[in-house]
């Protein structure tokens, strides 16, 4: 088992986000966590890489309980295994595209020199389909290009796991599909384990081996793409078909 989330609980003030969430992720698979807006999908991802600590429960990565890691060096050793594509790409505005991609290399891989870091950055940018952009600033890029650069930065230090936080949100359908293709392509070329969160079902079906649904702080179903498509669970069924009618009640007006 590559990553195990065991009985995670997390509250932000009175807001109960995770309430006993458990999930196992296997080596080499692409696991997608689906769920409504604000249900705690991104919070769950941040627990996996140690950006957030659970109030209760454990996150085990390659047999190591990362929630127990107190020392910064231990945490960075865990984070070295992960590449994280953020929702809005989270590129550093003050650095050029090339420096953004090389940033992790310079910090996480101590043996990589400056010229080598630049060369690797160019290679990774080529891998996500970008050429001759390393001198540009993030503000000069389109939304889709930012995602690609974010992806190049996430894979630059050759992590074992890649995490995608809503990889297609905010992109047009065609660009979304290109990003999906890119994720599948990287999966084949790098044979990494991927964890994605999304509420875009087209993307989820396309990129995943398995899909898990998070609802009210718990995983209510895990299955292969086919199993999720034909599920009997009324909650999952309602979500994947995108219907306002069903057991999940979203108020039309907040005061109702």
């Amino acid at each position, binding site marked *: 088992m590559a990553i195990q989330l065991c009985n995670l609980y997390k509250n932000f003030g009175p807001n109960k986000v995770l309430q006993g969430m458990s999930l196992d992720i296997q080596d080499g698979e692409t696991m997608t966590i689906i769920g409504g807006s604000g249900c705690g999908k991104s919070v769950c991802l941040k627990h996996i890489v140690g950006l957030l600590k659970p109030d209760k429960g454990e996150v085990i990565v390659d047999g190591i309980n990362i929630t127990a890691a107190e020392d910064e060096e231990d945490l960075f050793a865990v984070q070295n295994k992960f590449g994280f594509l*953020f929702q809005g790409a989270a590129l550093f*505005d003050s650095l050029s595209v090339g420096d953004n991609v090389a*940033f*992790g290399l310079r*910090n*996480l891989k101590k043996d990589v020199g400056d010229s080598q870091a630049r060369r690797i950055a160019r290679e990774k940018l080529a891998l996500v389909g970008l050429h001759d952009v390393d001198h540009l600033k993030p503000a000069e890029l389109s939304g889709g290009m930012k995602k690609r650069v974010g992806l190049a930065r996430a894979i630059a230090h050759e992590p074992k796991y890649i995490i995608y936080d809503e990889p297609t949100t905010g992109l047009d359908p065609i660009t979304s599909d290109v990003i999906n293709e890119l994720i599948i392509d990287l999966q084949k070329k790098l044979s990494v384990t991927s964890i994605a969160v999304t509420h875009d079902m087209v993307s989820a079906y396309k990129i995943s081996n398995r899909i898990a649904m998070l609802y009210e702080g718990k995983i209510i179903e895990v299955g292969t793409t086919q199993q999720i498509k034909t599920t009997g669970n009324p909650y999952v069924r309602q979500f994947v078909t995108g219907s306002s009618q069903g057991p999940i009640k979203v108020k039309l007006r907040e005061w109702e």
Partner: protein
Amino acid sequence: MPGYIKERWFKIIETTGDVTLLVGDLLKSIVRDKVDLNLFLAQAGRIGVDSLPVVGVTSLFVGMVLALQSGYSFKNVFNEPLFVGTVVGYSIFKELGPVLTAIVVAGRIGASIAAELGTMKVTEQIDALYTLGTNPIRYLGVPRFLGAFLMLPVLTVYADFIGIFGGWMISTWKLGIPSMTYLDEIYGMDFDVILHGVFKTFVFAGIVATTACYVGFRTYGGAEGVGRSTTKAVVVSMVMILISDYFLSAFLVAFGIG
């Protein structure tokens, strides 16, 4: 005790604790890790060199108006403008130089640090730093903190001299005081007087940098949150500078400095 007052007290205690932890982390990082010289110099330039024009103009006019007001007031009392150099010197060196420079820097640099770090927080760039093996306190906080800490005293000394020059201009041109009389009064001052002002700026620098970093790193809620943080950084810094100024002055005077 009513619930909302209790909540408010808890909030104050919590914030004090968090600020102390942040200062602890900053100091720990300064002592333990290697400070990135390039980042530090970039911040020192931004805080120091880029503030020279606005600090210069502010202190020039403060020196000028001090000479003008004190000159005319003494003329009304003594029929001649006595002690203008002394009044301008003491006021600038001990109070107006350090306090006004700190307030200008709080407005210029405190706001920009809070807005920059706040934007990085809400766009998840701070999280991205962590996932790329970089501690944001070390990468973003330390250079800004050290930059402010080293540059504010330098800016204050610069402001002191510009202010004294402003006072000299008005004294000689407008009030007809001989140049040597004004300058003799300045030269006659103890070095402790300058030290009194400069000592305070280290504390003011700590207030401005810590407040800006704290509210910046704690920003939430998108563009509105960044706006809120920026305002908070400036207002809190200014109020704390003025409050701490009184206690610092009392403390320094009690120890015979200035």
